[in-house]
C-alpha cells in the first residue's frame, strides 16, 4: 500500500451546515499539506478530527497503513494513541510548568536521563537556551510559539499538526518566524498538516494545498495548481492570487530583486539572496494592460506577451497572457474594448515591483 493520507469525514454542529472533509494525497517522507481557507470554512474542525479531538459522525481517517477513524467499522483511535504532535492556535502551554517541564511533558515513556537529554536537544534546536526555568507567561509570543512547537515534536511524532501557527504573533515577528518555521519543518523532516487563512503562509509551507470553503474541500493540489489553475470561481475567489510561478533570484540590489521566470525577468521586492528559488505571486488586479509599445510608466515591470484567453467575471474580464509564463490580469470590459484585445493580440502587462510577491521555498 502506497504511503498516503486519506481523510473523508462529515462533522455536523447543531444549527450549522455540515463540514465535509475529503482529502487524499500521497505522502513522501516529509510532505506538508496546508489546509487553506477563510475563517469558518471548517479547516480547524478537519485538523482537530485528525488529532482525535473531534469525533466526526461519519467517515474514515487513514494515515499510511493505520486507520485512526472508521465509523462504519467502529474504529476510534484516541489522541493518546495516534502519536501526533499538535499545536493549537493559542499554543495552550501548561501555565504551571516551566519551559523544560512543557517540553518534557510528552516524554513520560523515556527514562529520566533520556528525557533530560531530549529536552536539552529541543532547547538547543529551538534556541530556548537560558529560558529553561521560565514560565510560559514570562515569554514573548515568538518564544511561546517555539516552546509549543518543541513540546509537540519532542516525543518524535509521526505527524505534526499546526493550527494557524503564526496567527498569535504580531505582523513584524510573523514574517521572520515564517521563514524560521519553514526551515525547521524541512530540518525535522516530519510530515505535517498546517491550517492557515493566509495565502503567503499557504505558499510558504504547502507541498500540497487543500482549499476549503463553506465546509467543503474544494480543491487539492500543488500550490501552482491550486493558485494558478483554480477548479472553479469559488476556489479562485478564496485563493485571490491568480499567478503563481517558480523562479530563481538573479540579482539583488537594496531589496529590489530581479527574478528569472522561464527566461522572463521580473522585478520584485524582498530580501531573498541571489540564487534562491522562489514562488512569484501576482494578483490579476495588480496587472495593468497597455497597448504594446506605449510610453514610460513608474511600473518596474513591462512584459510583452500574447493574449491566450479571455474569461468574463461579472463586470470584469480575466485576461490570460503568455509572457514566458502564464500571467493573469483583471480588467474591465470597457478597457478590453479600448485596447481591442482578443486571443492572439500582443499586449504589454505592467506591474509595480511591490505587486510581485516573492515567497522563498
Amino acid at each position: 500500500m502506497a504511503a498516503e493520507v486519506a481523510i473523508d469525514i462529515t462533522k455536523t454542529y447543531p444549527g450549522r451546515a455540515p463540514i465535509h472533509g475529503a482529502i487524499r494525497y500521497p505522502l513522501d517522507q516529509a510532505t506538508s499539506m496546508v489546509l487553506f481557507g477563510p475563517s469558518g470554512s471548517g479547516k480547524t474542525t478537519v485538523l482537530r478530527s485528525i488529532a482525535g479531538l473531534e469525533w466526526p459522525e461519519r467517515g474514515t481517517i487513514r494515515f499510511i497503513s493505520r486507520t485512526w477513524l472508521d465509523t462504519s467499522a467502529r474504529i476510534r483511535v484516541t489522541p493518546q494513541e495516534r502519536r501526533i504532535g499538535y499545536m493549537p492556535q493559542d499554543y495552550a502551554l501548561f501555565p504551571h510548568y516551566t519551559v523544560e517541564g512543557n517540553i518534557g511533558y510528552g516524554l513520560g515513556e523515556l527514562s529520566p536521563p533520556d528525557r533530560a537529554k531530549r529536552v536539552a536537544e529541543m532547547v538547543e534546536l529551538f534556541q530556548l537556551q537560558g529560558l529553561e526555568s521560565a514560565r510560559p507567561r514570562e515569554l514573548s509570543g515568538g518564544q511561546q510559539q517555539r516552546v509549543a512547537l518543541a513540546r509537540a515534536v519532542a516525543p518524535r511524532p509521526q505527524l505534526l499538526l499546526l493550527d494557524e501557527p503564526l496567527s498569535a504573533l504580531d505582523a513584524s515577528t510573523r514574517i521572520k518566524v515564517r521563514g524560521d518555521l519553514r526551515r525547521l519543518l524541512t530540518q525535522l523532516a516530519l510530515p505535517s498538516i498546517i491550517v492557515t487563512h493566509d495565502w503567503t503562509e499557504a505558499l510558504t509551507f504547502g507541498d500540497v494545498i487543500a482549499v476549503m470553503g463553506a465546509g467543503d474541500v474544494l480543491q487539492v493540489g500543488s500550490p501552482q495548481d491550486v493558485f494558478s489553475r483554480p477548479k472553479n470561481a469559488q476556489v479562485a475567489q478564496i485563493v485571490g492570487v491568480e499567478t503563481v510561478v517558480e523562479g530563481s533570484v538573479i540579482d539583488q540590489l537594496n531589496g529590489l530583486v530581479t527574478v528569472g521566470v522561464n527566461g522572463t525577468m521580473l522585478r520584485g521586492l524582498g530580501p531573498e539572496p541571489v540564487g534562491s528559488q522562489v514562488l512569484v505571486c501576482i494578483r490579476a488586479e495588480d496587472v495593468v494592460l497597455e497597448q504594446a509599445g506605449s510610453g514610460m510608466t513608474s511600473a518596474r515591470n513591462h512584459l510583452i506577451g500574447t493574449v491566450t484567453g479571455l474569461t468574463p467575471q461579472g463586470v470584469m474580464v480575466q485576461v490570460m497572457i503568455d509572457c514566458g509564463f502564464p500571467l493573469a490580469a483583471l480588467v474591465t470590459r470597457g478597457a478590453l474594448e479600448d485596447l481591442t484585445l482578443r486571443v492572439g493580440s500582443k499586449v504589454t502587462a505592467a506591474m509595480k515591483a511591490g505587486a510581485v510577491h516573492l515567497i522563498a521555498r
Partner: protein
Amino acid sequence: MNWMAIWVTVKLASLTSLALLAIGLPIAYWVTFSKWRWRFLVESIVALPLVLPPTVLGFYILVAIGPHSPLGRFYTELVGHPLPFTFEGLLLASILYSLPFAVQPFAAAFEQVDRRVIEASWTLGRSKVQTFFRVVMPLSTAGLVTGVVLSFAHTLGEFGVVLMVGGNIEGVTRTVSIDIYDEVQALNYAGAAKTALFLLIVSYAVLLVVYAMNRKVWSAWPQK
C-alpha cells in the same frame, strides 16, 4: 466549654471534608466534562441538600440506613450493629449533606481550566487520569481548597441532620451545635455563649481562608 463535643465535631468535619475530596472530585469531573444530555439530573441531585430542610434529609437517611431497609440490614450483618445513632452513620449523613459544598466549587474550578490545555496533554500521550492529576488539579487548587474548607465549615454547624441520624450521645454524636442547644435548654447561657463564640471564630477563620484564596492575596507565593 464541652471539649468532648468540640473533638467530636472537628473529627466529623475533618473526615467529612476528606471523604468529600475523594468522592467529590470524580463527581465534579463528570459534571464538568460529561456531554450527556441528562447531566442536569445528576447536578440537581447533588445540589438538593442546599434547599432541602436538614430534617427531611436526615429523615430519609435514617430510613435508608435503618434496620428495615436492605442497606441497613446489610450493614448490620457486616459490622454487627446498626448504622443509625453511631459516628459512622453521622459521617455518612454529613457527607451527603455537604456534597454540594464540595462538588460545586470543584466543578466551578474545573470549568475554568482551558480545554485546549487538557487536549494538548491528551495529544502528548497522557491518559485522562494522568491529565487530571498533572494539569486539571494543579490548575484548580483555589477551587479545591474552597470546596474542602466550605464542606468542613458546613459540617461544623450542622444541626438537623445530626439530631435525626446521630441523636445526642455524649462523646459519640453530640456535636458543638447540639451542645449549645442543650446548654440553652438547661438555661446555662454562660456555657452556651463560650461554645457559640468558639464556633463563630472558627467559622470566620475558615471563610477568611476561602475568600483570601479566591482573591489571590497570596499571589506572591511561589507557584509550585
